[in-house]
């Protein structure tokens, strides 16, 4: 029997933007087993729900993640609105979709950069982040914040976007699309990228489904789950298809994300075309009394905000289940049998957001 050794990977590692630790059990250069550990930066946000009024907690919910912050805030608000039976104005629903899709663009572009960096393609990394700056500029111009927007509230949104600005954003999307096309062409066709990602970290469709994979990790293995299909917000009035791939390797996962970039710009264009005039919020009175499992599609996959109120201003429970937590078991499966040199690329391929997970 080959001697087994354990190589610690993380919590500090050049490819890891945030701390996760993996004990890699190796036989020669092959990984035969993996034991993951998180909890290095657990912040206990959920506990704060006992000390902040439900209308204020949206700011806490938003800070769960520094990348898809808007979607956390919107999901929390939608959960409260479901409990309280609040119907927000239609314009607010469209604005939430627009900001959510810009968040997805920003998140995916950030990830493409980190991913390119994981296999040493520095130029591609810088290119992805250069395009991301355009997206962040729009977020800043329309909400005042690059990564923490603070524009969502229970009952609607805090800020409106003028129709002139929406038209300007629609035009700017053409430039973003063109630049993303150039970038994704490299990710999808370059030999070095293919060599590092094809047949690497394969996750079968069955494993993806039963291990609870979410988002591009699931869709890269052919599991077509996308919570936007439930039609929350204004998604029920917009047309889009769920991007999937069938090979389940790292290439498939980045191919799904490449397709999703263009789905997002298309959804923003549709939302800009259809957004009606009118108010962007309604007055909220009373306090939530009941419970709801609000689910939405984050850039990394299915997000669950379980909210429970007892009729007071303070919720009894806010439980946030992030996609990275549920993508850890699939990651363990992907790593079993891989080469040590492929570990950074495979870990990055699930787009781990430990900040979310350590809410």
């Amino acid at each position, binding site marked *: 029997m080959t001697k087994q050794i354990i190589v610690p990977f993380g919590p500090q590692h050049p490819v890891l933007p945030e701390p996760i630790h993996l004990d890699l059990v190796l036989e020669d250069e092959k990984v035969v087993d993996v034991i993951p550990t998180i909890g290095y930066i657990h912040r206990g946000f959920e506990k704060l729900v006992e000390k902040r009024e439900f209308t204020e907690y949206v700011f806490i919910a938003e800070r769960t993640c520094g990348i898809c912050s808007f979607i956390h805030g919107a999901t929390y608000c939608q959960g409260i609105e479901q409990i309280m039976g609040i119907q927000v104005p239609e314009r607010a629903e469209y604005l939430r979709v627009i900001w959510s899709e810009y968040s997805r663009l920003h998140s995916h572009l950030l990830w493409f950069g980190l991913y390119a960096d994981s296999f040493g393609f520095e130029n591609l990394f810088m290119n992805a982040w250069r395009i991301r700056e355009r997206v962040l500029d729009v977020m800043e111009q329309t909400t005042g914040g690059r990564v923490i927007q603070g524009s969502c509230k229970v009952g609607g949104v805090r800020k409106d976007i003028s129709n002139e600005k929406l038209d300007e954003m629609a035009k700017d999307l053409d430039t973003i699309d063109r630049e993303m096309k150039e970038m994704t062409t490299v990710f999808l066709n370059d030999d070095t990228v293919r060599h590092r990602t094809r047949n690497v970290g394969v996750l079968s469709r069955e494993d993806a489904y039963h291990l609870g994979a979410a988002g591009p990790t699931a869709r890269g293995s052919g599991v077509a789950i996308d919570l936007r299909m*439930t039609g929350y917000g204004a998604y029920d009035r917009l047309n889009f298809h769920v991007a999937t791939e069938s090979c389940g390797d790292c290439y498939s996962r980045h191919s799904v994300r490449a397709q999703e970039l263009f789905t997002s710009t298309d959804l923003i264009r549709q939302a800009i075309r259809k957004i009606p005039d009118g108010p962007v919020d309604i007055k909220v009175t009373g306090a939530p009394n009941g419970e709801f499992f609000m689910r939405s599609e984050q850039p990394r996959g299915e997000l669950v905000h379980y909210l429970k109120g007892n009729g007071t201003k303070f919720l009894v429970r806010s439980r946030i289940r992030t996609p990275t937590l549920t993508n850890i078991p699939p990651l363990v499966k992907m790593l079993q049998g891989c080469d040590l040199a492929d570990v950074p690329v495979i870990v990055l391929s699930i787009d781990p957001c430990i900040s979310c997970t350590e809410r």
Partner: protein
Amino acid sequence: MKQEQTIIPIEVGRLIGSVEQFRNEGYRLAHIGCTKVGDNSFEINYSFDKDYVLQNLRITVTAETEVPSITGMYWGAFAYENEMHDLFGIQVKGINIDFKGTFIRTAIKFPFSVSAAKEEKK
């Protein structure tokens, strides 16, 4: 548009059989979460999804109850079950990868547990 969801309260003894049924019917495990209710009780929700419909099994336990692990049916449940132990102090029996309290390291041990709540009141 309202997302469809149902909550099914069950006894702890029926947990494994009910989860097995969901597994056999092709549901995927979407979430396990714990909520402190009252002074010494916890609600644990096991959420399963199929075609975007969420079915939630709910058991209510005390801090002393030993909850059986469902990792025999859903291998990936170890992340939730270790989390449940580390944050709430719930005793889960038979987890496939049992971190024994080191999966999530918090400054206060079991921050959502009964004992942590008593300390906070002091």
